[in-house]
């Protein structure tokens, strides 16, 4: 089926196969930051933002985004404050979980610009980092909050 949606700010169309999950459709469209890992909605490595909310692309059918807007990390500008903060705080080891973390942090900061470390840890509870770089990721959230506030 033909799916028409907005991908990273630009109109896009794709041909979704029967029962094709969004994660596979996005990878086929070149968005390799979207990574199926657990396939059961637990880890957050496949997170993308649909309209304004992060979702697991491994549990969403490509057909479900027809008429909606999808944002991946590849759609963020280089000077995005959250990306900047993750780089400056060295919050990635292997980097596998990073795209999902970044998008989740963006949504968290949109709701709670002055988020503290504890609330940030709670908000990232559904994003797993198998390298265990959680403390640096939480540093990055604090830095991202500062950079975002400065930007506004």
């Amino acid at each position, binding site marked *: *089926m033909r799916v028409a949606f907005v991908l990273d700010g630009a109109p896009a169309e794709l041909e979704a196969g*029967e*029962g094709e*999950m969004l994660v596979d459709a996005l990878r086929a469209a070149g968005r390799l930051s979207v990574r199926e890992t657990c*396939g*059961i*909605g*637990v880890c*957050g490595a496949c*997170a993308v933002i*649909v309209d304004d*909310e*992060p*979702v*697991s692309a*491994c*549990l*969403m*059918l490509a*057909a*479900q985004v*027809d008429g909606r807007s999808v944002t991946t990390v590849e759609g963020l500008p280089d000077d995005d404050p959250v990306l900047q903060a993750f780089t400056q705080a060295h919050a990635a080891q292997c980097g596998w979980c990073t795209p999902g973390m970044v998008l*989740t942090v963006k*949504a968290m900061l949109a709701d709670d610009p002055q988020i503290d470390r504890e609330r940030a840890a709670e*908000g990232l*509870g*559904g*994003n797993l980092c198998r390298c265990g770089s959680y403390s640096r990721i939480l540093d990055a959230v604090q830095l991202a909050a500062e950079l975002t506030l400065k930007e506004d």
Partner: protein
Amino acid sequence: MRWHAPADLEEALLLRGVHGEDVTVHAGGTFLGILMNQGLIAPPALLSLGRVAELRGIEVARGELRLGAMATHLAVERHPEVREGWPMLARAFGLVASRRVRAVATVGGVLADADYASDPPAALSALGARAILRGPGGERSVSIEELILGYYTTCIRPDELLVEVRVPPAPERAVYRKFVSRSSEDRPCVTVAAAHGAAGLAVVVGALAERPQRFDDLCAAAAGDLAAAGAREQLAQDYAARVEPIGDARGSAAYRRRVCAVEVRRALEALAA
């Protein structure tokens, strides 16, 4: 796999009536997605309710809360009127999974999948909620206890859709407790939803058996004595003796029975405080 995505409820009901069991209703797809990814199901056709705007509403009418079947967990958790009038329900929906799942998972989906390890069913049962089922023969209203029959089994007929959940005005006091045994976002091992008001005392224990457990006779006998610690402990022990727990990766049956006693007592303490 055919993908039907009707734009309104009338068309959705029509398709459901015509195709019955040959189509699988697809709401948020978070439950179905796992089953499909793992190759456990391969439905020949999906009937998506994603475009049916009429089913997404959340409103208060004559003191009663009405949740459309396609309202998401996140929408329920964040809705100002739900937080104000039914804070226990907002909490129970807010404790489900992660924000990513709550953004997609729906009120209808979590009831219709009838997974035993869920949060909202026990909470809705304690609040006396009813599910509205609509089919070609019209509409019927069933209690949560009538709706959920057992493991992944409901009374929804193949030509019906769950369209709405109605929650009566909230009782004076209500609490929800979720006990997880593995990680913070895990599905529950044992949950307790308790409510006390004009309609009496209701205590519902979820996730420990194939369907939510409630013993109204025990509650009626104890309702007057909640101020007494001994009576609360007795009711908790009576619940633990009467439930028929299952054992799974989240805890053995014996473990769940002990957790049940502790969690029911703590819920009753919170009600009495």
